[in-house]
């Protein structure tokens, strides 16, 4: 057993840490100003410019295979980088990655969708959730009806990340109502100009997902990703692609928040001394620190299992890390806000922004409740032992 990072891992992480500090964090004040004026924090051009700067240093396609021009990083390495990205609320992400299920595309589709997505020329979105089907994704009702060699898609998708910017969608639709999720759902690659529309959804965070409307959208047979009827498996594969990435990012946010809490506690004086002198404040700091360390190892453990196991043990560990990370990030941002008192509640500081953003971590990519269900089911069905993969 060895908890240390290799020199290479440290070097890659340190490069990203420096990049985030020098290139991304300086934008924070401007991002806050714009968001508060109702504008996007970062324009698409600014994001592209940052991505190209990183690309010039080789940071492009973190998880894209080297055969496709990416870095082919391990899950552990990717998690470490996601922690660094999570340290800022500037909506930045490295470019050059494509959805994992696009690698199932046939040769022609790869040319049209996979490669341009990796190149950053096209933007995808993953469209399964519907107004009536969230955690219960099997309940989707969007339908695709065969018409000659075409399919006619009708239905509504909601909370689609990137749906406002995407120029194509990976849409999951029922092609055989009898079979439902068990062989009756198919994934279609549907360009925006084939006729779907998107509508931004305002949220409490600074991030707007989209509602997608499919009103008799006609797509040819050649737009099917994979096989007719295997859409649900593809969807599960997409959702399971990197659940550890969410708590990894939340971990970075928690580290930054705790740093803010410590700095503030050491400088803010009440009754003649810094509030850091008070046990009540130290305990909030200590509790947060302990939970951050626990989270770090749950995330890295999950990522390590993705690299070395890839089976039920890794999915189990990812659910554990996701549930823990989402829960604790919300508790930690709340404590840091408390340490800052009234200042924490104002828009002078970014804490209230983190507060709103982190709330989503408990909901998307599997709610807390869905993670608990997965964890308990794995235990009760004997798929993993209570000793976990560690014992």
């Amino acid at each position, binding site marked *: *057993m*060895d*908890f*240390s*990072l*290799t020199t290479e*891992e440290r070097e890659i992480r340190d490069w990203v840490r420096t990049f985030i500090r020098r290139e991304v964090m300086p934008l924070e004040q401007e991002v806050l100003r714009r968001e508060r004026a109702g504008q996007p924090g970062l324009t698409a051009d600014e994001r592209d410019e940052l991505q190209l700067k990183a690309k010039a240093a080789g940071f492009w396609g973190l998880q894209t295979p080297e055969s496709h021009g990416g870095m082919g990083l391990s899950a*552990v390495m990717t998690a470490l980088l996601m922690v660094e990205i999570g340290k800022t609320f500037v909506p930045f992400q490295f470019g050059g990655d494509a959805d994992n299920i696009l690698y199932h595309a046939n040769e022609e589709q790869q040319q049209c969708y996979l490669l341009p997505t990796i190149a950053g020329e096209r933007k995808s979105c993953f469209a399964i959730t519907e107004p009536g089907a969230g955690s219960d994704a099997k309940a989707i009702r969007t339908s695709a009806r065969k018409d000659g060699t075409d399919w006619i898609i009708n239905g509504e998708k909601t909370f689609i990340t990137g749906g406002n910017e995407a120029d194509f969608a990976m849409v999951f639709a029922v092609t055989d109502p009898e079979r439902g999720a068990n062989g009756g759902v198919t994934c279609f690659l549907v360009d925006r100009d084939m006729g779907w529309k998107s509508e931004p959804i305002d949220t409490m965070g600074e991030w707007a997902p989209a509602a997608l409307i499919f009103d008799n959208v006609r797509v040819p047979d050649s737009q099917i990703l994979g096989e007719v009827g295997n859409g649900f498996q593809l969807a599960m594969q997409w959702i399971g692609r990197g659940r550890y990435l969410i708590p990894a990012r939340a971990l970075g946010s928690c580290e930054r928040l705790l740093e803010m809490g*410590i700095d503030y*506690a*050491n400088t803010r004086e009440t009754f003649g001394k*810094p509030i*850091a*002198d*008070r*046990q009540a*404040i*130290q*305990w909030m*700091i*200590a*509790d947060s*620190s*302990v*939970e951050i*360390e*626990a*989270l770090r*190892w*749950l995330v*890295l*453990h999950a990522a*390590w299992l993705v690299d*070395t196991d890839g089976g039920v043990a890794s999915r189990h*560990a990812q659910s*554990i890390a996701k*549930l*823990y990370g989402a829960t604790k990030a919300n508790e930690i941002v709340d404590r840091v806000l408390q340490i800052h008192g009234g200042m924490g509640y104002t828009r002078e500081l970014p804490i209230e922004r983190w507060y709103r953003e982190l709330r989503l971590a408990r909901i998307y990519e599997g709610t807390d*409740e869905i*993670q*608990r*269900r997965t*964890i*308990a*089911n794995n*235990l*009760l069905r004997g798929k993993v032992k*209570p*000793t*976990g993969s*560690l*014992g």
Partner: protein
Amino acid sequence: MDLSLTDEQRAVQQLARDFVDREVVPNVAEWDRAEQVDIGIVKQLAELGFLGLTVPEEYGGSGGDHLSYCLIMEEFGRGDTAIRGIVSVSLGLVTKQIVKYGTEEQKRHWVPRLCSGESLACFGLTEPGTGSDAGNLTTRAEQDGDDWIITGQKMFITNGTWADVALIFARTDGPGPKGVTAFLAPTDAEGFSRTEIKGKLGLRGQATAELTLDGVRVPDSARLGERGQGFSIAMFALDKGRMAVAAGCVGLARAALEASVKYAKEREQFGKPIASFQLVQEMLADMAVETDAARLLVWRVADYIERGLTFKTEASMAKLYASEAAVKASNLAIQVFGGYGYIDEYPVSKFLRDARVLTLYEGTTQIQKLLIGRSLTGINAF
């Protein structure tokens, strides 16, 4: 990064697992009711090398690394916290300090006996008036020629009435931590008396005692370390001790989870196993998450020790987190078992009673938080 165990570590884990299943689990309820474990188990522990872990073989130890030690403590914690305490106090707090700080003579005299189970040790730091504030202890050691005369009281001493040797911390000089010196006092010395503390909430099989030293005379050769070094010896022992306690907590939390998973599948209500109710599943999931997190925090400490890194704050984090996780898990286990969890025919009420001491001894939860807070802010809020 590599979180896997070596074949050797797996073998030692299996050895401890089998031992606990064979010798401990069948007896715990009886020991708990009798408020006394079968003390013959000390010999058995020694025979398998558990009392000599991480101790060099030249002193009768069985070698091994700190992770192996944690793996064994987890298994003992799963079986019976009282048994885990015998090992972590005699070996962890005392034997290891003799190895680290002792003279060659002290090592040759005590270490082989302690590793073989011929002798057992206890750690005499806490006093009736000084728990968390151990640096202000009042037991005195006065020099008399080449000897020392020790007078004072020690409280809540694990292994107290069983031990053959006590590592006693006494004030030899001025006030505060710098005036404390450590002594290895044989418990059969004249003036040394011991009373077992009965009626504890948990840890009932464990002999927790009050020690009274009334003019106990020991030679200067019984002094462990330098004069005035006692408190730092105690703190060093407790830093590593926290890792062992935390590993035991992981075992206890795991035992609670294992018992709950099994029971939830067997127990039926409303025509189906209670495992099929989401509110029961939530309890199982939360126990599993915290147990895994605690184990990783513990293993990190073991890894840091092996790599020669500082580990004090990490040990405090592991101890704080794992002990609170053990209390929560055992409390949830009672909830899963319902009324049956409240009676001692089932194992889980003992888990809670035993777990409750884990957030108290070897540094309370509050002390751990102060240590962690101090390390993060640089400000001492004690």
